[in-house]
């Protein structure tokens, strides 16, 4: 389908918005289910005598499990589209089936992981499973809906050469990679070790000694997702939203030319500068942890002369 510039930009904006929601909710899903790298601490805690009430699923690495879910949604959607279903209905049913399958994986994974920790006396809390699993399914449904919708737009409206399931798979892997790199740091680096002083760094010796008390009562994964929704989730959404928007924006405006590539390079340069500005600000704000021995030595020498 050939679109004029205004319509192309509108479609691109819609895709960016969908990607932002998908990225945000994907990270929150990985926090409520405790997946990916920070889950190593949840897994380690019972071995350090820190029994906890946190969900422990980690079906696989985040990109792969989200890719699996998205491709399932994409396949079901394609089948329903071939059966002449209305597109929105097809995407919703596809995402729902994918989310339920994801929920099954989450349940078996939680039960299996906790069962393997029986020797460390970690109990399997049935109330946690009952209350948290629907939340995981709900989050995954939104992620899957957004990703399959992006794949649908790309395939049907923009005319990408790949099919809906393959595009959904690629976006599923990408959203997982971004969620694992961005939002999980907020969960693993801050929320799991919230009892230490803010900004003091995270000593490796603290491994496995996760915080188990909540603002009220014992901490569960639902408390974690409440906290991470304030920053980790939205930041992940920005990451995926920027990716989807800026990877297509130059070619949408300037066509398939070297000018578009040059604009891409300029975007990269701007992002590098922004990262540098953040680096300067945090270095000034928190300062060095150690004194500079060389400079201290030089000052001492200067005083003796």
């Amino acid at each position, binding site marked *: 389908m050939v679109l004029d510039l205004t319509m192309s930009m509108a479609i691109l904006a819609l895709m960016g918005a969908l990607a932002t929601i998908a990225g945000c909710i994907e990270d929150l899903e990985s926090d409520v289910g405790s997946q990916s790298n920070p889950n190593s601490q949840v897994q380690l805690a019972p071995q350090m005598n820190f029994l906890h009430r946190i969900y422990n699923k980690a079906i696989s690495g985040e990109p792969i499990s989200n890719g699996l879910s998205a491709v399932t949604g994409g396949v079901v959607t394609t089948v329903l589209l071939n059966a002449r279903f209305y597109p929105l209905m097809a995407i919703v049913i596809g995402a729902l089936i994918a989310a339920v399958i994801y929920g099954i994986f989450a349940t078996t994974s939680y039960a299996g992981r906790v069962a393997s920790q029986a020797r460390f006396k970690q109990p399997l809390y049935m109330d946690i499973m009952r209350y948290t699993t629907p939340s995981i399914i709900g989050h995954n449904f939104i992620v899957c809906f957004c990703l399959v919708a992006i794949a649908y737009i790309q395939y049907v409206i923009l005319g990408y050469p790949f099919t809906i399931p393959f595009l959904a798979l690629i976006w599923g892997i990408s959203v997982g990679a971004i969620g694992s790199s961005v939002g999980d740091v907020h969960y693993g680096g801050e929320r799991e070790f919230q009892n230490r002083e803010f900004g003091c760094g995270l000593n490796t010796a603290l491994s496995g000694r996760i915080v188990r008390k909540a603002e009220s009562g014992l901490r569960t994964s639902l408390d974690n997702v409440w906290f991470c929704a304030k920053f980790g989730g939205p930041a992940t959404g920005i990451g995926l939203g920027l990716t989807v928007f800026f990877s297509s924006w130059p070619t949408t405006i300037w066509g398939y030319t070297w000018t578009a590539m040059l604009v891409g390079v300029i975007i990269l340069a701007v992002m590098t500068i922004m990262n540098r500005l953040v680096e300067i600000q945090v270095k000034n704000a928190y300062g060095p942890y150690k*004194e500079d021995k060389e400079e201290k030595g030089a000052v001492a020498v200067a005083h003796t002369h």
Partner: protein
Amino acid sequence: MVALVDPTTLIDILLIGLSGTLICLAVHFIPVGGAPAAMAQATGIGTGTVELAAGSGLVGLITSSYMYAHEPASSMVLIMAAGAMGSAIMLASTMLAGGLIYAYGVAVPFASAQVKRDPITRQRQDTYISKGTQGQGIPTICFVSGVVGAALGGAGGGLIYFVLMGYYTPLIAATSAAAVAGVFTMGVFYVNSVIPSYGVGGTIEGVHDPKFRRVVPKDVVTSVIVSMLCGVVAILIAGGMTP
């Protein structure tokens, strides 16, 4: 039977080998901190090598395939550039958003544990490393190294896609050719992301890391052999293709 000794076929296999090697080399540039970085205990991005390299490379595959579909006459270099741009923008967005979390969510200054001063900004690194960690966050050198690496990987992915589409399109329908070429490119991405993760042992800070010089030659040789093998397989599977 497909003639493997045909000069055009040999060039295709060589190009696939070259692009696979490009992807393998690219992974070494990307600052991957693995699980320790997810807890702000190591410099780099807080996820695994394979997932990150594949995640960014596949976004590059989407952009390059779209360009190939709409401008079939565009040159090989332009397709590679499209892949490089998509891939680099994905990684830069990830590092920027990740940096925001390190800066304001965990509140740690960015510091590299491998160099005393950042080679680009000349700023001290060692004094900013918090107690009991191997650095944290994404300093400028890691950011630049990551962007360069992602661009190399995306260019490699674009090249494989270009070569395979040129080979498969006359044999089968265009949609099927795109599907086979896309899935095969994804496979080559995964193969060439796994090789470096053995070499670097899960974490590397980028081009300034001493590991880079130590492991790149070995990994590149391995990748050349494995990618050429992938190229042979890519040509062999075309033997069963009928229009």
